[in-house]
């Protein structure tokens, strides 16, 4: 099952969940899996994906209720998902040399799912939250605009 479908099915009825409003922001990257024979992401695409990842994580941390983040974390673990932003945690993909990072990120998800980690106070999110609080415009207002023909051309990519 594609992660977009999982997110939509799992989180339907939860109101204005950021990942439901703009699933590509959360799950659309990682072209090493999704681009078939196209050859993986360019450096430019990866840099853009890194920025989108930060936006998605920030939105998740600031807009998603903790209970919803726990559900997201459980879902990512249950489905053994390796891609996308879940509960504010960026999963790095399943390349072999990303396995240690994937395991570490899943450990954070496990802590969130079990209620042992509050994503808003976890050290891994400190820089993001500090940056968001420093912004003149609240980070929650910086989500990408609703899709239009030009934004559909926006490439999605892998993030580390």
């Amino acid at each position: 099952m594609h992660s977009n479908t999982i997110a939509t099915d799992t989180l339907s009825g939860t109101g204005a969940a950021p990942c439901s409003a703009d699933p590509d922001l959360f799950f659309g990257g990682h072209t090493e899996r999704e681009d078939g024979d196209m050859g993986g992401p360019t450096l430019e695409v990866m840099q853009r994906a890194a920025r989108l990842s930060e936006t998605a994580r920030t939105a998740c941390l600031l807009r998603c209720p903790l209970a919803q983040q726990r559900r997201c974390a459980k879902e990512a673990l249950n489905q053994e998902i390796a891609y996308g932003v879940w509960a504010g945690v960026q999963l790095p993909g399943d390349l072999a040399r990303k396995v240690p990072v994937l395991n570490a990120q899943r450990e954070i998800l496990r802590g969130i799912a079990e209620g042992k980690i509050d994503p808003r106070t976890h050290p891994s999110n400190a820089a993001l939250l500090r940056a968001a609080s420093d912004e003149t415009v609240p980070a929650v207002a910086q989500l990408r605009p609703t899709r239009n023909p030009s934004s559909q051309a926006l490439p999605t990519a892998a993030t580390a």
Partner: protein
Amino acid sequence: MSITARQNKARALVVRHPAHARPTVVRLATASVLAGMAVAASAGTAAATPAAPLPTFTGTTSLQALLLDDREVGSMLGAPNLDEVRSGNKLLGGSARPSQCTGAYAAASAAAYADVDPQEVAFKVISDDGSRPNVIVTEGVVQLDSKREALAHMTATADAWADCKGLTVTAGGESWVLDAPRVNDAHTIVTLGQTSVDGSRTCERAIATYRDIFIDVLSCSTGRAEGQAVKITQAIADNADAQSV
């Protein structure tokens, strides 16, 4: 072909050598096979390769058993806190850009075996697990249809690596610059260095064959990875040699 059938076939083909005749270092490929490769010798001029008879497999119980465990890799690389973080019996997915360099970038990658028909596969990923690992090793062994196919695949792989010389490969949110492939003096192991664009990490790819077994290794380190994949590849070959009769 089932493993049992292949093992029986291997037994039928076995050529036994007196113990004293077994080479200390397994000769993985003949110089003639590698002579046409567009690779540079790692140091000096390669000596002529003696025509030593090849040891023969007689029923490897498991490809997985040829691979090093976390303690062996840790001891070899001087990294005591390594763990096996993944293992399996299928080639790995994922691709890099440019796609033709995926096999130069990653070990045991399915993209690098499109020209052959893998019979059995085993791989392990060993690392000091964490969000910022210092060491990551991917070691794979792929049983191909024949020794001839394994050697042909080694040549083709080395040529593919040569085509990636100097290119920057991107994958998994990172970019790596690939060196030219090199072959050791014995013409048995081909290696390829990789350096992250920020210079913080290096990796070494290494490939070799032992009969119909293709050995495929990647070792990455925050320090100097040079020589690491070679050692692991040789150790896997030695394991294979120890399991042959």
